[in-house]
């Protein structure tokens, strides 16, 4: 194949291609971060729900201790239950936020990929339009 002449108007397209590729990489990394954060919250939610179900099974005079640093502090059962319930509500809210972030990120990635494909096609067409003498 003859050396592809990169004309000035191609330079612009090539640069645009590069920018879109970098943008896609950033979006993909962001997406992976969102997914791993969501997994963490999911695990925390499970753990807290397990603890709550254990609390609900406790008999009236059970003793509950909370680990605060290196110290086990005695807690009242109703207080412990409400703390865990509040944590669960908070985590559920964070999970919803994460899910929204993930859907948004997916949409942005799809748009970016589409732009990338369009620019690539444009560039290919422009470069082919310059080469008919070689193929004839």
């Amino acid at each position, binding site marked *: 194949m003859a050396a592809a002449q990169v004309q000035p108007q191609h330079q612009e397209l090539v640069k645009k291609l590069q920018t879109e590729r970098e943008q896609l990489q950033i979006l993909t990394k962001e997406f992976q971060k969102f997914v791993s954060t969501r997994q963490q919250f999911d695990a*925390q939610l499970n*753990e*807290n729900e*397990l*603890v709550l179900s*254990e*609390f609900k099974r*406790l008999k009236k005079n*059970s*003793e*509950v*201790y*909370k*680990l*605060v640093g290196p110290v*086990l502090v005695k*807690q009242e059962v109703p207080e*412990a239950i409400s703390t*865990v319930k509040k*944590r669960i509500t908070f985590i559920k809210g964070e999970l919803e936020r994460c899910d929204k972030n993930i*859907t948004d990120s*997916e949409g942005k990635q799809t748009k970016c990929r589409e732009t990338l494909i369009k620019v690539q096609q444009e560039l290919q067409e422009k470069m082919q339009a310059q080469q008919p003498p070689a193929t004839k």
Partner: protein
Amino acid sequence: MALDNVQAVDLAQLPVPQLNQLRSQFEEEQQMLTQSLSQLKGVQSRFVESQESVLKLSKKKVGKDILVPLTSSMYVPGQLADNEKVLIDIGTGYHVKMSVDDAKGYFERITEYITKKMEVVQKNLIEKDKLRQVTTEILQLKIQAQQQQQSAQQQ
């Protein structure tokens, strides 16, 4: 979930490179699921061990000499103070004092819970394996068809 509308695509309609990509995706997912499964098994065996420890401890008499670990390399001599109540770590920093029987019940429940989760993962794994096999078959058929087409064109 987003996965549902993607799987409505007929596998036979997909071109070779996409089938290849799908197949590697399935293999990756299978690896992750297998890893999860072995992690769950590990956790479950730790709970079983804890349950056995509690039972063994409850059989010993109060006042029996014991060595208490203060750090991972230092033990201190002591005596068993109570063989009826135990402090169980139930997660998120909470510990509950319960009788040995309650502790046994707790461990049984947790082990049961993990077994159920492992069954779900196992089912997923089998499904992924089927999908992967089907994708591989279709891929091979398509590659064969392509090769036959190419050799027919060259004649």
